[in-house]
């Protein structure tokens, strides 16, 4: 792919977790995780706030009087504690724990109406860099020194950017979308939550990742396997010149299974599965993990032997988790507010507010206040977004009609405020991003009935088969104006469902292609069980944790094309564990 940077966002929707945990999780053995440390009885504000406040006041006093003047300064200090235990092919790959503190400073020059972040052309405005390391020891003087230098650096970048904007010709040619202010005014938030941390004995996990990856060695189809457990505790301190003063934390645990294989024609195939949980007692049991592993292995063995599918157009059924990824890619990214503003974006939905864009039986919300859906932890949950705005439930589509966007503090005409969706990976500038995207349906049938409807549609359209898509890996979504408003989503597990009642056939090498507005209107019915995937979504503000949830959907028309394939052939020799010939013998 040779496209301008930023035009294509490669979304690695690392996937989901599903039924296996919720069905089996309850009955299981005690977990090796020792537990999160109990939070302080009464949350205390970190002693570092004083140092941050002193620098904030001192900086604003001076920088607010410069030309151009700073009108906003914000500090974010993120303390992360991360344990990672990884295994591969039956052995421990690594096991370590690290702590890190990262300081980010945001300085804005100009005014809320026109500031240094104002976009005038396709270039991303230069920023002052991703931030800097801060000491782990609570030393106010050393922290102040880091804040001092970083604030100065960010002010300079913001001043330079604003001068460029004001002296540039482009600012005079304002588009309608560009008339919205550059930064929204928001109510300051104050909150002090408990400081979170965990104490973890990594030994049991070291044995588990060995055992889980050893299991995959039994299969000749699996060339490489990696299983990774991570525990991550993050405490965030935010302070800005508007009066926001926040301290909150979150612990998350994750187990990821990943295997690689190769079809006989050289196509690379990988399978992936992840478990996410918040409460240590809800860690997946061995039974649940082996069930997921067995499923991955079975899919891998099926896929390496399966035939390549030809490009087709026809009815398709997406299971809940596949549908969730589909909505994330096809709808969710286009409902991110800043994309409606940027003149280089396709602005698919910019002018569609109040108009139907989906069948009337579908509604979509993005609710980042939800910790769980059913038994499932949602990765997109948070208390405050990365601009210090409280999380909210946002109705994006109500009975088919587009109502709202995911908004950061970059306002749109008619949408003057953030709704708590300004998000970023540490080091990046926040933009509007998805959180928990939840699809609700008022036209539900059982999943069995949905399948029957698929076959009905296949017959109606005179096709030999329809497609059942069980797993999707995310993909590219083109939202830039220079590109066709198309999406390409990579389904990983696809079956042909035949009209004549033959058993389903696993096929390989298909990409879903299409245009978003058309694809969304072709949905004819949904299943009755909402399924969740949790993943990390990558876009211009980095990788952020998200969830998407949806019931299965049936669409009357979906187009698939052939996937690019690798030229590398399968390995010449059989896997060592499956080599019947005498090792090193005289052949």
């Amino acid at each position, binding site marked *: 792919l040779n496209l301008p940077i930023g035009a294509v966002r490669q979304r690695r929707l690392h996937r989901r977790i599903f039924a296996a945990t919720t069905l089996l999780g309850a009955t299981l053995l005690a977990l090796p995780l020792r537990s999160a440390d109990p939070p302080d009885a009464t949350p205390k504000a970190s002693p570092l706030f004083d140092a941050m406040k*002193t620098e904030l006041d001192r*900086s604003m006093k*001076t*920088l607010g009087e410069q030309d151009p003047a700073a009108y906003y300064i914000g500090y974010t200090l993120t303390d992360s504690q991360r344990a990672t235990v990884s295994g*591969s*092919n*039956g*052995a421990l*790959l*690594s*096991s*370590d724990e*690290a*702590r*890190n503190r990262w300081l980010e400073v945001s300085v804005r020059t100009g005014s809320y109406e026109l500031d240094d972040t104002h976009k005038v052309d396709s270039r991303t405005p230069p920023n002052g*860099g991703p931030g800097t*390391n*801060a*000491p*782990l*020891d609570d*030393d106010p*003087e*050393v922290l*102040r*020194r880091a804040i*001092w*230098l970083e*604030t*100065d650096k960010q*002010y*300079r970048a913001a001043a330079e950017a604003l001068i460029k904007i004001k002296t540039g010709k482009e600012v005079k040619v304002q588009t309608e979308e560009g008339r919205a202010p550059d930064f929204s005014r928001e109510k300051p938030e104050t909150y002090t939550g408990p400081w979170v941390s965990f104490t973890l004995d990594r030994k049991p996990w070291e044995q588990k990742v*060995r055992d889980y990856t*050893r299991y995959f*060695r*039994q299969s*000749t189809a699996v*060339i*490489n396997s990696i299983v990774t457990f991570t525990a991550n505790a993050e405490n965030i301190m935010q302070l800005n010149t508007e009066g926001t003063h926040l301290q909150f934390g979150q612990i998350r645990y994750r187990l990821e299974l990943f295997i*690689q294989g*190769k079809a006989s024609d050289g196509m*690379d195939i990988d399978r992936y599965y992840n478990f996410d949980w918040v409460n240590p007692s809800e860690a997946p049991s061995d039974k649940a993990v082996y069930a997921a592993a067995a499923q991955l292995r079975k899919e891998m063995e099926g896929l390496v032997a399966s035939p390549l599918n030809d490009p087709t157009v026809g009815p398709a059924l997406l299971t809940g988790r596949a549908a969730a990824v589909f909505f994330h890619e096809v709808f969710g990214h286009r409902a991110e507010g800043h994309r409606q503003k940027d003149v280089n974006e396709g602005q698919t939905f910019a002018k569609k507010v109040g108009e139907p864009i989906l069948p009337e039986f579908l509604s979509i919300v993005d609710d980042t206040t939800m910790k769980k859906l059913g038994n499932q932890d949602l990765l997109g949950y948070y208390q405050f977004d990365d601009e210090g705005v409280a999380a909210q439930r946002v109705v994006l589509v109500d009975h088919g009609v587009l109502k709202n966007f995911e908004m950061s503090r970059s306002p749109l005409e008619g949408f003057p405020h953030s709704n708590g969706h300004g998000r970023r990976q540490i080091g990046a500038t926040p933009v509007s991003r998805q959180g928990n995207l939840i699809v609700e349906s008022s036209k539900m049938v059982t999943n069995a009935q949905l399948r029957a409807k698929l076959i009905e549609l296949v017959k109606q359209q005179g096709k030999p088969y329809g497609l059942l898509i069980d797993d999707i890996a995310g993909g590219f979504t083109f939202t830039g104006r220079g590109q066709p408003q198309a999406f390409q989503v990579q389904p990983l597990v696809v079956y042909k469902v035949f009209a004549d009642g033959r058993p389903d056939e696993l096929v390989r090498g298909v990409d879903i292609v299409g245009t978003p507005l058309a694809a969304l209107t072709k949905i004819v019915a949904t299943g009755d069980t909402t399924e969740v995937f949790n993943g990390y979504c990558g876009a211009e503000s980095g990788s952020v944790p998200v969830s998407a949830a949806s019931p299965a959907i049936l669409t009357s028309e979906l187009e698939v094309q052939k996937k690019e394939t*690798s030229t*590398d*052939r399968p*390995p*010449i*020799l059989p*896997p*060592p*564990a*499956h*080599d*019947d*010939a005498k*090792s*090193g*013998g*005289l*052949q």
Partner: protein
Amino acid sequence: MRILRLAALIFALSTASAALAQAPADNDHTLSAMRDEMARSKTRLELQIPQADQPVRPFFVEYRLLDLDVREIVAEFGALVSSNRSRIRQMSVSARVGDYKLDSSNFISEEGFRGFIGSTGDVGIDRDYDSLRQDLWIATDQAFKEAVETYSRKQAYLSSLARPSDIDDFAKVEPVQHIDPLVPSDWSNRNWEQEARDTSTALRAFPQIYESRVTYYLVYMTEYLLTSEGTEIRANHCFAAIEAGMNTLAADGMQVSHYYSSYAPRPADLPNVDTVRKGLNVAGRELMGMREASTAPDYTGPVLFEARAAAPLLAQVLSPSLSGARPPLAFQQVVDQLMNSLGARSEWSGKVGARVLPLKVSLVDDPFAKDYKGTPLIGGYSIDEEGVPAQKVSLVEDGKLQNLLMSRRPGPDFGKSNGHGRSTFLNDPSDPKPTMSNLFFTSSETVPRDDLKKKFLDACRSEKLDYCLVVRQMDNPSISLMHQEDFQELLASFGGNAATDRLPLVVYKIFPQDGHEELVRGARITGFSPRTLRNISAIGDDDFVYNYMQSQVVGLSGTALGAFGTAQSGLPASVVAPSLLFEEVEVRGARGEPKRLPLLPEPPMTPKANN
């Protein structure tokens, strides 16, 4: 199908238990996994190529594995920034097709084989048999396919040349077997986190230092090498480092930086807190001096490099020229030019027998030397990264070039390795470069310290100069610069002169009239090549041991910039040299865009005796 898989499983279990049966006492199955995968790769790995009657097979396969146990502790101004320990095993497999005369190596082409897993990567740290077999299997497959593809591209390229070289691609060696016992990492009973805090606290005494960072880097490693020629090695290495960088801005906005470094063969040998604090204190004071100093002028005239500066100068000037290996064939001219501008070409290659240094000077590289007059040297080893036993090499005798450092890659002068093929895993591990270990620059004719200075001042007077320059210390920007952007800026500032620009750090003007000295900042020496060393006008009777890290960053290794490494990215090396006087050196004064001073004064920093 099920029966078949069951059979496979039983087979797998039986091979596993067979391996277990011959388990070594230390429970390290690394070499046995390598041996078994090598055996079947040697006999059964082959690829049928269209239009060829015979299937292609590798003539050489090499397994390298580095087991690293690393601690890294960073502190600034008395506060801990990070503290990590990690153990990883990095595997690298390389294969060659063709033959020793002409093979698939030493060719840089634009496109190459793109496998999906690759021939290098992290592997399990359990020292077990089965997982390593699996990893070696796929890596060997990828390395072999890569070699087949590169070989065909190389042949196509060579057929376009008027006169291909008659130098062999790969030198034959006697296989070596050498197995060190496994040793557990000994971090000593010192509290490294506290030491990092306590030493970095010293810089609180200088509130005008904007940024500083003290890094303790402790490494234990076990290196494994197994080749299809029969070499089998398990060797232990370790080293320890303290590196500190610090910076500030002068009143005119010029950034000034300084550094401190100390290297030792083992963590326990690192200097104690007081010694490090003293060193940091000296650097801090000098940095404050540089901050106030006037900028360096453009200057051409006599320059005295005191031993402390002469040793790092030699490290930078000589290292590319000591290599006798043939440079890689580059399909693209751009690569060729880039390597030239970085100084990767040996100026001594093809000059054996010619005078390259002053007549009384000898240059010896001795991997066996452990110390010099009691000061430990860190460049030593007994077997190089290609499994060739180390050799002491007499490079220059009485000013005449006798030898070059050789890896298994032959060159125009010599065809055999003398055990100097060195690399770290950060570089291309399958392509060790001839690299110095402990380099000794000695002269049979020396001048006592005071006489040297007198000679220097006399030269200065006779040139009728108001002042001359003395260099007390050279810079190591990979340590003194604390941000990647600063380093990139420096690289860009070299323009095409990266091969001959040198970076002095502590430079004084010395006035012959009354002998007084003034510190200057921002000087850069230009046009200083190995040829300049022929014109050394006097050599001191002193000496300095410069322990440092040769950079193995891809593209810098083997170039003049190769002398700028850090503990994380380098290969330990030592240079011993005396003070050197040159009659004419060109110095370029301070250049470049000054930065702007911060708008706010620095916040307070309270000095502390100790944490």
